[in-house]
């Protein structure tokens, strides 16, 4: 039945789209606060994926259980990378900061890719738990349980991030710093620490996304670039500084890819995202879900 196959593809797209959204929110947070583009964001995601894979393979830690400790570890790794590589850009003029951050990010992504290749080989790695094959039949379609759980986790993480940004002292400081660094310093916000924290948080979000990728799909040392690209497309679609807009844009991209892959042929999957990117950036550069 072609309609249910269509719906099935849309469901798969929706489920992967949640991960696009999660990956994009981390990238967007770092860009919004620090005004740098971390093109190694996808490699941080890849590291999170390997963390979940090895914790499961070596010690049988359920990937959903290992999310919290590996997010914490990714926060620390992100903070360290920020200190070593990006902190020096802090007070450079905005355009210089952006350009240099992209150069540094590409260097970092090459290093991380090569390190992963040397350490873990080029094999595709996926977490195969007892629930891996389980599906929920819904009407004429099936919903894979683990992917549904991943979407739920992604949504819960973003809801948590929203509460953090709106309700806590540090969250308020992050929003203020994203708005105006100089004014943030004037009211007493320790801006360098906010930068460090925001980069760490962005890395932790990448790590969580990576763990979910290794559960629902697979990781290898070179997955990073395509995830950075997806995240960038989603950030442009959703508009800056809007967590739920970004999440919805992720779902939208996931469905658009899956449906176009199904209708036009698999070769058009990737093209669809890039076409959307070009259309949105030229017609509605503030993003689909932005308030302005």
């Amino acid at each position, binding site marked *: 039945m072609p309609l249910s196959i269509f719906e099935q593809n849309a469901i798969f797209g929706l489920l992967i789209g949640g991960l696009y959204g999660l990956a994009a929110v981390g990238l967007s947070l770092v860009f919004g606060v620090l005004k740098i583009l971390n093109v190694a964001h996808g490699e941080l995601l890849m590291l999170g994926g390997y963390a979940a894979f090895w914790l499961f393979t070596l010690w049988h830690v359920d990937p959903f259980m290992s999310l919290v400790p590996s997010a914490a570890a990714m926060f620390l790794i992100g903070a360290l990378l920020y200190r070593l590589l990006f902190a020096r850009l802090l007070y450079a003029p905005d355009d210089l900061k952006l350009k240099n951050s992209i150069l540094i990010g590409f260097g970092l992504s090459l290093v991380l890719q090569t390190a992963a290749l040397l350490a873990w080989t080029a094999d595709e790695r996926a977490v195969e738990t007892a629930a891996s094959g389980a599906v929920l039949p819904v009407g004429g379609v099936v919903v894979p349980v683990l992917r549904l759980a991943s979407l739920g986790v992604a949504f819960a993480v973003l809801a948590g991030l929203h509460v953090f940004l709106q309700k806590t*002292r540090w969250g*308020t400081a992050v*929003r*203020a710093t994203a708005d*105006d660094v*100089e004014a943030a310093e004037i009211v007493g916000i320790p801006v360098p620490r906010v930068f460090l924290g925001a980069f760490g948080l962005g890395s932790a979000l990448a790590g969580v996304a990576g763990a979910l990728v290794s559960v629902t799909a697979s990781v290898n040392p070179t997955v990073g670039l395509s995830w950075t690209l997806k995240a960038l497309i989603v950030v442009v679609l959703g508009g800056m500084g809007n967590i739920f807009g970004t999440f919805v844009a992720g779902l939208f991209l996931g469905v658009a890819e899956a449906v176009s892959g199904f209708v036009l042929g698999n070769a058009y999957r990737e093209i669809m995202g890039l076409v959307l990117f070009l259309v949105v950036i030229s017609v509605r550069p503030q993003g689909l879900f932005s308030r302005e």
Partner: protein
Amino acid sequence: MPDSSAALLEITDLTKAFGGVRAVDGLSLRVHEGEIVGLLGPNGSGKTTVFNLVAGALRADAGQVHFAGRRITADPPSRRARLGIARTFQLVRVFPNLSALDNVAVACLYGRERAPSTALAREKARALLAGAGLTRRVETLAASLALGDRKRVEIARALAGRPRLLLLDEPAGGLNPTEVDEQIALFRRLRDDGITVMLVEHNVRAVRTLCDRVVVMHAGKKVTEGTPEDAFGHAEVVRVYLGRA
């Protein structure tokens, strides 16, 4: 002459150059607790640069800044804010994507007196905004406020951390006479609350009615200082400041 140890802010031989231009050139001045001091001078005489050096947005090339007896010349602005220096900007600078409430609440969270929780910070911010006549604008994004309201938010934000010294850069700029009167009344109340105020202002009426003392600058140097009456009567001040012979 007040005792030098009582000075809340003490600037000594302060110098800052941009390229070859000395925006502030060996300036020394003192501001005592509870005073309202006006910083006057023509455009480009270095007034805003002095504010930037005191608040920490710029680092001095030479000279010292002492605040409440402690040297702050090399401290970052956030530290100076926590010590009790607050400021407003010539071109009003609120957090555009934060609500009026959060603009003020964030300063309650990080100022000299840190609110113990965001809930309490918002409560305090609500009271400050009510005091500024903005009760109905609390949830509005700062970017959508009118200029006068944005200035009120900025001043409320500056007061939120309970500062000891408030630097106001042209607070009356762009306001109508009624709003200027409101501001004069507000700044008087602030002084009564024990907040020391230093302001850059071109509105002569505001300066005359508000300032205990004025410091007149020209080309980064102090021309004279004294009561507003003395200063405006000073021939040199009339020449450099008002541009008349």
